[in-house]
């Protein structure tokens, strides 16, 4: 019990008349881990995280955050959490330092402004107004506002959406830094590389439910296998059942000409596949392989891509 930062059972959020944003979601997040909610837009990630942050009331379900309930200890919880929302705009005319001082004043305990500026690498922007910051700097400042209180639990809702690659990597550094200094982190994202890089464990969420849970590596191995082979060939010349029966192939799916195989032994499966197609006189128009990723997990589980 004491080692759980978040425990949530049967979480439901219904928006009348007929939107079911969260549909019986269960979640257990351990202290000290970085946990990712991964899913496409509209999967219910933001609704879930805002309920956990105490900003939305659930329709049903039991939630404990840091061993407390929102209904009993709202002020204590707010002081122990740090959050960033999707797309908050801070006051345009205030400087980085002034905004941090404002947020710091809301908390009884926390870091110095100096320390937080260092954590998010904004020391040389301290006198810059918010309106003059780049997208990545704004996002790092938003995270800094969440870190001023030295929170036990940090919520980051799509922290890198819309950022350029370099800014994303800088933000990842900030999150890793926060995690290694003992914060528990819950983040949502629809970037699987982000989840693989930052998260100890991920839950894949779709239609308001957790459809898979584990470490990124576990999930990939369990759901997909080691490698993915993709090829294009005329659909009528190849039968799904016979492809699936090839040595080393664990699963096969196709959409028109595009095939995707999950494979345990690439060295066995590839020659077998080529022989198979050759024997039937089916021309191969493309062939590629990659290590299986969380994206493949999602596609395998739902038949859809994360970002359409």
């Amino acid at each position, binding site marked *: 019990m004491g080692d759980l930062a978040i425990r949530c059972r049967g979480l439901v959020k219904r928006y009348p008349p007929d939107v079911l944003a969260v549909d019986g979601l269960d979640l257990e997040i351990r202290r000290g881990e970085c946990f990712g909610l991964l899913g496409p837009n509209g999967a219910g990630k933001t609704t879930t995280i805002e309920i956990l942050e105490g900003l939305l009331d659930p329709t049903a379900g039991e939630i404990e955050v840091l061993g407390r309930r929102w209904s009993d200890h709202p002020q204590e919880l707010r002081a122990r959490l740090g959050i960033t929302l999707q797309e908050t705009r801070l006051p345009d005319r205030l400087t980085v330092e002034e905004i941090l001082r404002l947020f*710091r004043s809301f908390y009884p305990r926390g870091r110095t402004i100096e320390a937080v500026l260092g954590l998010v690498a904004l020391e040389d922007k301290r006198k810059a107004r918010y309106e003059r910051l780049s997208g990545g700097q704004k996002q790092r400042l938003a995270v800094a506002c969440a870190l001023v209180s030295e929170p036990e639990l940090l919520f980051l809702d799509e922290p890198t959406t819309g950022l350029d690659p370099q800014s994303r990597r800088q933000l990842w550094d900030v999150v890793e830094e926060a995690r290694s200094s003992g914060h528990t982190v819950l983040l949502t994202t629809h970037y699987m590389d982000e989840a693989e890089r930052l998260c100890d464990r991920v839950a894949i969420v779709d239609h308001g439910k957790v459809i898979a849970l584990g470490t990124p590596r576990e999930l990939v191995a369990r759901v997909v296998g080691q490698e993915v082979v993709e090829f294009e060939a005329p659909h009528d010349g190849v039968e799904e059942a016979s492809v699936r029966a090839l040595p080393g192939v664990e699963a096969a799916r196709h959409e028109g000409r595009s095939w995707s195989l999950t494979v345990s032994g690439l060295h066995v499966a590839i020659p077998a596949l080529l022989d198979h197609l050759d024997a039937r006189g089916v021309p191969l128009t493309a062939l590629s392989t990659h290590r299986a990723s969380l994206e493949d997990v999602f596609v395998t589980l739902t038949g859809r891509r994360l970002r359409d």
Partner: protein
Amino acid sequence: MTELEPRREPPPPRPSGGFAERSPLVQLALARLRSFYREPEAVFWSFGFPILLTIALGIAFRAKPPDPVRAAVVAGPRAEAVRAALAAGPAVDVRVLGDEEAHRALRGGQVAVVVEPGDPPVYRFDPTSPDSRLARTVVDDLLQGAAGRRDVFAARTERFTEPGSRYVDFLVPGLLGMNVMSSGMWGVGWVIVEDRQKKLLKRIVATPMRRSEYLLAFVIMRMLFLVVEVPILVGFAMLAFGTPLRGRVLDLGVIMAVGAMAFAGLGLLVGSRARNSQTVGGLINLVMMPMFVLSGVFFSSRHFPEAMQPAIRILPLTALNDGLRAIMNDGTSLTALGSQLAILAVVAAGSFALALRWFRWT
């Protein structure tokens, strides 16, 4: 601070800064204040615009010597004698014109009365125009006098154009009131909705900040605003136009403060639920527009029909403007302005209470 011993544990978080740095209320008020004075447009509309308006209207409606009475005499044998008799009067502008010409001048408004010399003379004038009626009376007086009529008595006259009765003296309290209204409604209603639209409101209610302090920061901001606005506008009007301040400064401050609370409350009310700034902008204009017209900013609300007066009297801007004019121009004391103060206080209390009940925090 120097450290004498090597430290073994990380030090406890330093209680950073002084009271001002640790007080959410001070930091919130500072944030408001900075956001305001770093927005040059907002500063102009709040402080520069009322001064420009005072200058423009003060010049347009400055005290002028009375217009001369313009009269025409129809040409003829006795015309010269009549012209001389009229020209002898003070502030009469008289010329001799042909019959046709005189008719045209009267119709075009270049003259207000046409005299046809004769025994008795004929006055042509327009009885529906105050100008024309006045000209007829002046002309008749002069010609009767020239013909030998004696006045029964000669009244002594006194000019009455002292400060307090001029248009600019009417205008300045009205502008003060209008400014308190619009800066209160925009500065509270609009700003809150902007915070809500930017999700800043949602972000800060996720912190342990007390919600009352967020709102109290607006009240502090309004009061600071008065401390700057009243001296600037009143001081300018006193220096440039000699506008009087006959009542007590304290009374002026009190009624301005209560008025500012009333309009801050109305601003809070219109901003309590709106999700975007277009909506709240429309609401603010909807609330303010009737008061701009009815509450006696630029002209006296007494011009409106008697049947509307009870409704006009209970508008908060009417109460504020009437109170300000009484204090500045008549030296009335606050104790005689109970009904105005009561209206403002009720609006303030009522709007705050309703707004807090309806307020949408997340």
